[in-house]
């Protein structure tokens, strides 16, 4: 396939010569820096970035004069792939966006497709999705808060919490067979029903996790060293944060209580009690506190639901949307045809343009879907929360210390897969 690469077909597509080669310029520029200014790279592969992303930083001693984030190292163009996938196949791509809490992205995507099709999934599927959603939020916040501790020099906290992330990952493994890339939902419900003993496993977490979380808080919240390293560091006010398109815990840390779960309720979030924690100055310390309190609130939501998982089907009983039971596929002709049609043609989404939002661990994930009625979406755009707030990074770190920069990057919770899409 030569496609647009042949010279005659290249009109309209810019050629390399049209762009300044950024990296080369940066290297050249480093030779002409004023005396005493040093240019360093953090990343693309560096322990402090927790993912493949680069920061080019000009330093005067330890003071950051200028920071230039360079992103795109994990860019896989999922939006292009979506245009050749069925709606269910795209679930695999959503797994790999925020890989720390993959089920949340699965749920957000299937919710968007179902909302566009006008489907209401069975209550059992809704409740199980909500429980898994909150468990995943806990896994994400464990990583973010635990690693913030590691980055400012406190190793113990992460190990206190990591055991519980392991327990939640075990639940995911029992549910889906995968620990990280779960592909846990399907359009119209779940991939499969919950296993026997699911409620017991979740209750074990609800029972023992709050105590450990309290211990974890004890290690950090009143810790003089931790406070000195994070309080007031990377602070941002609400108006600036909104101007940058902040959502999620990072916006709430500035004192503004926006949460998609409350503002535009989906699943069963309008039937459960929970509070939205907010911070004061939007600094790394407040982001830490907000995430910590959100773990408590997630546990509270799960506690209200775990004893009340409704009986009934775990997916819609409509074989134009969900797969028929395997036994019927093997023994009956019509079910076999439905099975074939769903695997090959997928679900039929009505023509039109649609935007659906959900609250994932980092904020509002939005799926902007354009459908022409075919088996694949005509266009999918994913509003990745990381991508929006990470562009404020230079503003947060310039004028501060190099070591503060690490704390800011950790506390923002930049996930490379979500950042690049």
């Amino acid at each position: 396939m030569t496609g647009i690469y042949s010279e005659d077909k290249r009109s309209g597509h810019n050629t390399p010569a049209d762009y300044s080669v950024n990296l080369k310029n940066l290297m050249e520029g480093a030779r002409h820096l004023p005396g005493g200014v040093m240019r360093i790279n953090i990343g693309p592969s560096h322990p402090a970035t927790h993912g493949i992303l680069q920061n080019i930083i000009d330093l005067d001693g330890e003071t950051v004069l200028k920071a230039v984030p360079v992103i795109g190292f994990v860019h896989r163009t999922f939006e292009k792939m979506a245009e050749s996938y069925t709606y269910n196949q795209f679930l695999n791509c959503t797994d790999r966006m925020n890989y720390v809490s993959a089920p949340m992205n699965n749920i957000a995507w299937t919710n968007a497709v179902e909302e566009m099709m006008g489907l209401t999934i069975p209550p059992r599927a809704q409740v199980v999705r909500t429980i898994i959603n909150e468990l995943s939020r806990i896994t994400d916040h464990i990583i973010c808060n635990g690693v913030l501790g590691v980055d400012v020099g406190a190793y113990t906290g992460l190990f206190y919490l990591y055991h519980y992330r392991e327990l939640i990952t075990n639940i995911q493994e029992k549910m889906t067979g995968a620990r990280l890339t779960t592909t846990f939902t399907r359009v119209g419900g779940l991939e499969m029903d919950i296993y026997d003993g699911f409620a017991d496993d979740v209750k074990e977490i609800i029972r023992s996790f709050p105590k450990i979380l309290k211990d974890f808080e004890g290690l950090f919240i009143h810790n003089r060293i931790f406070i000195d390293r994070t309080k007031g560091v990377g602070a941002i006010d609400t108006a600036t944060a909104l101007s940058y398109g902040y959502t999620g815990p990072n916006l709430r840390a500035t004192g503004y209580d926006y949460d998609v779960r409350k503002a535009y309720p989906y699943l069963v979030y309008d039937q459960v009690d929970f509070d939205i924690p907010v911070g004061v100055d939007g600094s790394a310390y407040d982001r830490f506190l907000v995430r910590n309190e959100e773990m408590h609130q997630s546990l509270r939501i799960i506690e209200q639901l775990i004893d009340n998982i409704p009986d009934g089907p775990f997916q819609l009983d409509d074989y134009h949307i969900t797969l028929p039971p395997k036994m019927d596929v093997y023994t009956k002709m019509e079910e076999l045809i439905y099975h074939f049609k769903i695997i090959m043609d997928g679900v039929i989404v009505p023509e039109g343009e649609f935007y659906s939002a959900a609250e994932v661990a980092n904020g509002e994930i939005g799926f902007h879907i354009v459908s022409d009625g075919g088996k694949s979406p005509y266009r999918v755009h994913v509003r990745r929360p990381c991508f929006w707030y990470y562009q404020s990074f230079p503003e947060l770190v310039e004028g501060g210390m190099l070591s503060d920069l690490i704390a800011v990057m950790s506390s923002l919770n930049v996930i490379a897969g979500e950042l690049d899409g």
Partner: protein
Amino acid sequence: MRGLNSVLNIELKNHLVKMFPVRGFTVEENRGILVIQADASDLVNLMNFLKTDPLCDFNVLIDLTAVDYLHKRTQDKRFDVVYMLWSTATMQRIRVKVTVAEGLEVPTVSGIWKGANWPEREVFDLFGIVFSGHPVMERIVMPENFRGHPLRKDFPLEGRGEEYLIESIMIHPPDSGSGSK
């Protein structure tokens, strides 16, 4: 999206139609959300109005993207640049669409919302739509010397693949057509 106010939508629609009696400006409701179709030349005015007008008060740009309608529309209406705004006062959302032909520019809104900076670069990177007045109109997620704009509908799904790397291009400029899978 659930939770949007349809009564407010009607009020906003009447207000907007009254305030923008210009050609090419339409407002209609689509699946519960107001969709404004505007000309690129009116865009900055419109966005400023939507942001500052007390009734609209759409103070946050929540999403920015583009759609390529190659073969579905005529060439002069090839791309839609789509903006999603959000009002923190009323919790209402609104979609603004600007239709552009290939090669034409759209004025940047990064002066109105700082957050428009990277998304506009991303749209430029993946669609080749240039935003005039943007501070750094360069690629953001693809390598600087990448050829083509992947989300255009005429960009092939399979192409040169892994051999198309920064390093190899810097040393040996690619000859056209060779090395395709």
